[in-house]
C-alpha cells in the first residue's frame, strides 16, 4: 500500500538520523556501554585472531556498538572490513555520494576553518576593518557571479553535511557493512532520494509507481514525527534525538527576521568561499538530482522518488524565491522613475584613471582667528577660482562693517552671522583646480563651540592643512590647535600640511627663528599625537598678503630663506595629493554620510551632499537612508559642480534625490546601498584613547557629521599600548589611557558599523576618540 510505504520510508529516515547522532556522540558512551565493551572486545578479538586479522580496540568497539553487542555480526563486519573491497563497490559508493557532500567535505576538511557560521553577526564581522581593509582580505566579496546558484540552501545543510562527513569517515575506517545504510547523502538529499542505494544507481529498474496523491506527498517533507521510543530490548540506552533540533535552511529562512537574514547571507558567503576557493566547481554540470530527474522523465512512468524529488526541487526554488525576497525586502518595490543605465562603475573608474587628474579634499584646521578662512580666500583668489571683482565687492562691504581685513575670509564665510561676527561657524566647501590636481577646500571653524562642525569637515577630507599664527602660538597650543590636531588624527587623516601664517607681521617680519620655533613646537605636538614625521610638511606664509601661498616670495631680502628652503602652500598641497583609492573600496557597498540636506534648485528640490566613504553610485540607483530606513532614488549627481553619471568612494559629491520626503533626511544620516544597509544601533563598544579622565557619564557622540548624545554606560577594560588587557572594569579611565567602553545612545539609534570613528565630547571638550569595536542590539 502506498501509505504503508510512506511510513516505512519515514522510519528509515529516522534510523539513519539516529546513527548519525551516534557518530557524533561516540565519545559519550555510557558506563554500561563501557562495561559491555570490556566484556565483549576480548571475545571479538579472539575471533578475529582466529581468522588472522588485526583490529584496533576502537574499531571493535564501534562495530559492537553498531550491532548492539552482537558478537557474531561484529566479527563478520570486521572481517569484511579487513578484506579488500571489490573495486566496483567502491565506485558505486563514490557515485552515491552527492555533490553537496563533496562540497561539504571540502569545506570541513579545510584546516582551521569551521563551516559553522559565527554565532552572531557582530562576531562574524569581528576584526573586519571597513575603512582600511587589508588587501589580502578584499578579494572575497567580489566573485559572486549571477549564474552561480544561490548557495543559501547550503547554509542550512552545512551542519548536517558535517555530520554526514563524520559518519563517512567512520564508515571508511570500519568499512561499513551493507546493513549500515550508505550515507553518501546529506539529509537534504535524503529528503528527495529513495533510501536504497540500488534504487539510486539504477533508477530505471526501480519499481515505478504513478503519483497518486501529490498533495499527500507534502507531509513527507515536514520533519519526521517523533517516533515512540524504539523497543527497549533493542537499545534501552539510546535516546531519540530531537529531530527538530537543527532547523533546516528553509526553516531558518522562514523564521528569521530581516536582521538575521543578513547573518544567513553571511553564512551563505562562507559556504561560497569554501567551495569557490577550490579549483573544481562542484556545481559545474548537472547536479545529481538533475541527472536522475532527466532519467526519470525519459522513463515511462513516474516513480515515487521522482514525485518527492520534484517537490523537493520546488521547495528549493521556493526557498530561493523567499530568500531573494528577503534580500530585496528593504527595497520597496517602487520602481524608481529614473532609469539606471546600469553602468559598470568600477570598470569606468579604472579605465578613466589614467586620464583623470588626481582629486583631493583638505580640511583647514587651527585655532580661532589664526587666519584659516583668509588664507583660503587668498588661495582661491590667486588660483583664479574667485575673481578679483568679487573680492573688491567683499572689501567694500566689509569696510562698511569696519572689518576690512575680513574681506578674503568672506569668500568662505558666506553666512550673514559669520560675516557680522567675523567668525566661521560652519564648514565651507569650495572647489578649485590647478593644472595637476582638483582640490576641494573644507574650511573648518576654529571656535571651540563649533568643534562639532569641524569634526564633520575632517571626516570628509583626505588631508589636513593646519594653520598656525606664528605670533600667537601659545593661545592655539592651549586651545583648538591642540584639539584639532587630535581630532584630525581621530578622524583618520594621515597627512598634514602646517601653514605657519601671519609671518609678515611677526617681529621681525619673516624671522626665520620665529618659524623654526613654531615648527619645533608643532612638530612635537604632531608626533606625540601620532603623525609620522614624513607626513608632516611646513610652509611659512602670509594669507593676508598672499606671500608664499600661490606665488613664491622673492628670493632676496628678508624672505630669502623661505624661497630657498620651502615650497609654496599650493605646491606642497599638490605634492600631498594622491589618488590612491583601493578598487575594493569602490566595489564595496555604498556608504555616504550626509553632510547637508538642501534645496539644490527648482529642478532639484531635494539634494544631499557628502563624501562617499565606500562603494559607488550612479544616476538611477536606489539608496536607503539610515536610520529612517526610507528608500530614495538618485536622479542626478554633481561632483565639483559638474553633472556626472556616477561617483565613487572618496569623492565629495551632491546627490539629487527623489521619491523621499525631506523629513527622512538629516545631516549625519547615512545613504547606503539597498542590498546591504548600515544597521541602526542603540549601543556599541568603542576602543578609545582617553584625552581626559573618563567616568560613566553623559557625552556627546560624534561620528563625522552625526552629532547625538549618549551615556558611557560601562568602562569595560583598560588596555596598555600593545592592546593587552590592563584592568577589567576600571573605576576610572585616566587621560592618555586606552580603554574599551560601552556607549549607549540616548535618542534612538544611529547608523554605525564596526570600524567607524567616534569622537566623544563632554562639556565642550573632546574627552576621547576611537573606533567602534562592536555594535549592540539593532533597532
Amino acid at each position, binding site marked *: 500500500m502506498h501509505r504503508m510505504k510512506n511510513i516505512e520510508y519515514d522510519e528509515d529516515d529516522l534510523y539513519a538520523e539516529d546513527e548519525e547522532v551516534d557518530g557524533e556522540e561516540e565519545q559519550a558512551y555510557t558506563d554500561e556501554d563501557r562495561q559491555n565493551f570490556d566484556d565483549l572486545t576480548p571475545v571479538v578479538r579472539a575471533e578475529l585472531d582466529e581468522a588472522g586479522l588485526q583490529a584496533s580496540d576502537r574499531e571493535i568497539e564501534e562495530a559492537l556498538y553498531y550491532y548492539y553487542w552482537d558478537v557474531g555480526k561484529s566479527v563478520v563486519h570486521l572481517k569484511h572490513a579487513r578484506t579488500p573491497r571489490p573495486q566496483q563497490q567502491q565506485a558505486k559508493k563514490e557515485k552515491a555520494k552527492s555533490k553537496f557532500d563533496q562540497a561539504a567535505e571540502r569545506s570541513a576538511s579545510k584546516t582551521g576553518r569551521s563551516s559553522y557560521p559565527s554565532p552572531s553577526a557582530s562576531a562574524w564581522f569581528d576584526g573586519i576593518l571597513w575603512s582600511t581593509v587589508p588587501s589580502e582580505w578584499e578579494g572575497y566579496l567580489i566573485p559572486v557571479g549571477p549564474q552561480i546558484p544561490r548557495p543559501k540552501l547550503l547554509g542550512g545543510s552545512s551542519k548536517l553535511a558535517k555530520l554526514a562527513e563524520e559518519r563517512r569517515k567512520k564508515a571508511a575506517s570500519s568499512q561499513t557493512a551493507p546493513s549500515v545504510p550508505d550515507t553518501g547523502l546529506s539529509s537534504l538529499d535524503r529528503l528527495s532520494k529513495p533510501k536504497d542505494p540500488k534504487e539510486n544507481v539504477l533508477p530505471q529498474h526501480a519499481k515505478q509507481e504513478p503519483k497518486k496523491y501529490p498533495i499527500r506527498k507534502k507531509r513527507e517533507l515536514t520533519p519526521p514525527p517523533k517516533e515512540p521510543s524504539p523497543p527497549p530490548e533493542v537499545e534501552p540506552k539510546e535516546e531519540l534525538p530531537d529531530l527538530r533540533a537543527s532547523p533546516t535552511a528553509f526553516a531558518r529562512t522562514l523564521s528569521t527576521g530581516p536582521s538575521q537574514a543578513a547573518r544567513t547571507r553571511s553564512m551563505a558567503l562562507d559556504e561560497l568561499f569554501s567551495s569557490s576557493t577550490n579549483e573544481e566547481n562542484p556545481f559545474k554540470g548537472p547536479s545529481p538530482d538533475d541527472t536522475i530527474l532527466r532519467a526519470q522523465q525519459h522513463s515511462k512512468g513516474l516513480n515515487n522518488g521522482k514525485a518527492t524529488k520534484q517537490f523537493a526541487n520546488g521547495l528549493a526554488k521556493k526557498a530561493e524565491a523567499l530568500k531573494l525576497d528577503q534580500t530585496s525586502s528593504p527595497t520597496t518595490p517602487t520602481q524608481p522613475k529614473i532609469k539606471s543605465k546600469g553602468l559598470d562603475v568600477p570598470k569606468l573608474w579604472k579605465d578613466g584613471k589614467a586620464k583623470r587628474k588626481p582629486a583631493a579634499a583638505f580640511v583647514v584646521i587651527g585655532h580661532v582667528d589664526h587666519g584659516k578662512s583668509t588664507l583660503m580666500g587668498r588661495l582661491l583668489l590667486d588660483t583664479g577660482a574667485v575673481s578679483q571683482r568679487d573680492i573688491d565687492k567683499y572689501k567694500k562691504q566689509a569696510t562698511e562693517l569696519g572689518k576690512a581685513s575680513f574681506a578674503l575670509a568672506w569668500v568662505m564665510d558666506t553666512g550673514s552671522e559669520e560675516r557680522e561676527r567675523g567668525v566661521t561657524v*560652519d564648514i565651507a566647501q569650495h572647489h578649485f583646480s590647478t593644472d595637476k590636481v582638483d582640490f576641494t577646500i573644507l574650511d573648518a571653524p576654529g571656535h571651540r*563651540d563649533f568643534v562639532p562642525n569641524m569634526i564633520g569637515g575632517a571626516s570628509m577630507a583626505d588631508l589636513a592643512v593646519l594653520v598656525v599664527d606664528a605670533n600667537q602660538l601659545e593661545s592655539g597650543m592651549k586651545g583648538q590647535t591642540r584639539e584639532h590636531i587630535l581630532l584630525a588624527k581621530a578622524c583618520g587623516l594621515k597627512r598634514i600640511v602646517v601653514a605657519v601664517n601671519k609671518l609678515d607681521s611677526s617681529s621681525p617680519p619673516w624671522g626665520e627663528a620665529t618659524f623654526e620655533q613654531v615648527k619645533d613646537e608643532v612638530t612635537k605636538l604632531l608626533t606625540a599625537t601620532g603623525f609620522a614625521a614624513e607626513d608632516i610638511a611646513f610652509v611659512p606664509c602670509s594669507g593676508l598678503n598672499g606671500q608664499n601661498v600661490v606665488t613664491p616670495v622673492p628670493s632676496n631680502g628678508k624672505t630669502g630663506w623661505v624661497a630657498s628652503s620651502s615650497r609654496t602652500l599650493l605646491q606642497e598641497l599638490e605634492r600631498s595629493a594622491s589618488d590612491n583609492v583601493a578598487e575594493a573600496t569602490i566595489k564595496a557597498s555604498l556608504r555616504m554620510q550626509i553632510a547637508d*540636506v538642501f534645496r539644490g534648485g527648482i529642478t532639484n528640490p531635494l539634494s544631499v551632499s557628502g563624501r562617499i566613504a565606500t562603494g559607488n553610485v550612479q544616476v538611477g540607483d536606489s539608496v536607503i537612508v539610515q536610520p529612517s530606513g526610507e528608500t530614495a532614488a538618485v536622479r542626478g549627481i554633481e561632483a565639483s559642480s559638474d553633472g556626472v553619471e556616477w561617483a565613487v568612494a572618496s569623492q565629495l559629491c551632491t546627490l539629487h534625490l527623489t521619491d523621499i520626503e525631506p523629513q527622512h533626511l538629516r545631516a549625519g544620516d547615512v545613504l547606503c546601498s539597498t542590498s546591504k544597509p548600515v544597521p541602526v544601533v542603540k549601543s*556599541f563598544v568603542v576602543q578609545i584613547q582617553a584625552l581626559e579622565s573618563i567616568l*560613566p557619564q553623559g557625552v556627546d557622540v560624534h561620528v563625522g557629521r552625526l552629532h547625538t548624545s549618549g551615556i558611557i554606560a560601562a568602562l569595560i577594560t583598560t588596555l596598555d599600548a600593545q592592546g593587552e588587557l590592563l584592568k577589567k572594569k576600571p*573605576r576610572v579611565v585616566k587621560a592618555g589611557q586606552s580603554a574599551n567602553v560601552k556607549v549607549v545612545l*540616548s535618542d534612538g539609534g544611529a547608523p554605525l558599523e564596526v570600524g567607524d570613528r567616534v569622537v566623544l565630547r563632554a562639556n565642550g571638550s573632546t574627552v576621547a576618540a576611537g573606533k567602534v569595536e562592536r555594535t549592540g542590539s539593532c533597532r
Partner: protein
Amino acid sequence: MRLIKQTIQKKDGSGSATLLPEEPEDMWHAYNLIRANDLLRASAIRKIVKESAAGSRSVDRVHTNLTIRVTKLDFDTQASQLHVSGRVAEENKHVTLGSYHTLDLELQRNFTLEKAEGWDSVALDTLKESINQTAKAQLWAVIMQEGLANICLITEHQTILRHKVEVSLPKKRAGSSDHDKALQKFYQTTFDSLLRQIDLADPKPLLLASPGFTASSFQQYIKTQAASGANKQLHQLVPKITVAHSASAHLHSLSEVLSSSAVTSKLSDTKFARETQLMDRFFDLMRNDDARAWYGPKECEAAVERGAVGKGGGVLLISNALFRSQDINTRKRWVQLVDEVKDQGGEVRVLSSMHESGKRLEGLGEIAAILTYPIENLDEEVGDEHGGIDDLENDPDGSAVNGIEGRSEAHEDIEI
C-alpha cells in the same frame, strides 16, 4: 504639600500622616513617599453596579474614601500624576475587602499614608522636605543649538523635558539664503512651542543656553517679537531671560549650565548648589584618581563599613531612585547605609533622580561616596560580583552596574 495631621511615633515610626498636595511637584514627593505595602487612604470614585430584585442593573458612580494596601505605583512625569494600585484594606458599604482599586491622587485632596514598615529616617526626611513651603524655585530652560532645542521645566527636584524641537537646517551655501530662512523658521517654531508651555501671566525666569550665538540670537528674536506688539504679555518675559553658554543642546549639558555663575546667581536654590558642588568635587577627585572617591553600591557599602564615610568630610551621595525599590529589603539596605553614615557623622545627600545632579549620579550606579581617608583597591576587595556589563545584547538600556535591585524603577525617570 501641606501636613494636615500626623500621628507618627518617634520611637517606632508607627502612625500615619495626612497630607494635602498643592502643586504638581508634590506628586513627585508622594511618589517618593509611598511604597508597596503601605496603607493609603484617599478619596476615590468607584463604579457600583446594583442589581435590583427584578433583575435590572443600574450603575452608580460614587465618591468614597478608600483605604488600599499599595501594590504598585505609576508616576507620569509629563503630567505629574501618580496612580497607586492596591487592594482595598478597609471595607465599606460600596466596596468589599480585597477588591482591587487604583487611586489617582489629586491636587487639593487629602490623602493619608501609613507605613507598613514604619516611618524610617529616609521616609521622614522625604516627608520633611516635601512639606517645606519655602523657596520653590522654578525656571524654564531652552537649551539649544542650530536645529535642535530642548524646552525643559526645572524645579527644585525635577527637570522635565517638555518639548523637543528638531529641525533639519540646510548648511550655509554661497549664493543661497536658505540657511538664514530656515534658521528664522527654527526660531519661530521654538518660540511657538515655548509659548504653548509657559504661562505668560505669571512668567518664571527663562534660561536660554547654547554653544555659539544661537541662544543670544534667539533672545534677540524674542525681543523682536515682543517689540512687534502682537502679544503684550511678552514684555514681561523679556527681562526674565538669562543667556548662558552650554556645550551642546543635549540634556546632559544642562548640569554645566546650571552650575555656571550666570545661572546660580539667579537661582537661589541652595540645595541644588550644594549637590552640584559635591558632585563636582567627587568628579574632580575621580579625575585625579584619588582613592578617596568611590562609586557603585558594593564599593560604597564597603567604605561605610570601614567607617571611611564619617566625620571630617565624609559624604554619601545617593539617588532617591534606590529608595523607591519595590523590594522592602533593598530599601532597608539603603536606609541602613544612610543611618550608618549619619551615625558616623558623615554628610548624606539624597539626590533627586530627576534632577541634573542625580542624573550624573545615575551613571555611577546611583551611589557615590567621598571618603575621609583614601582606600586603595576597594573594588578588588569587594570582588567581581556584578558581571555582564560588556554584554551588549542583554543590556539594551545599559545599566552601568548590575545587582542593584532598585535599578529598574530608576529607568522610569531617565527619559524625562
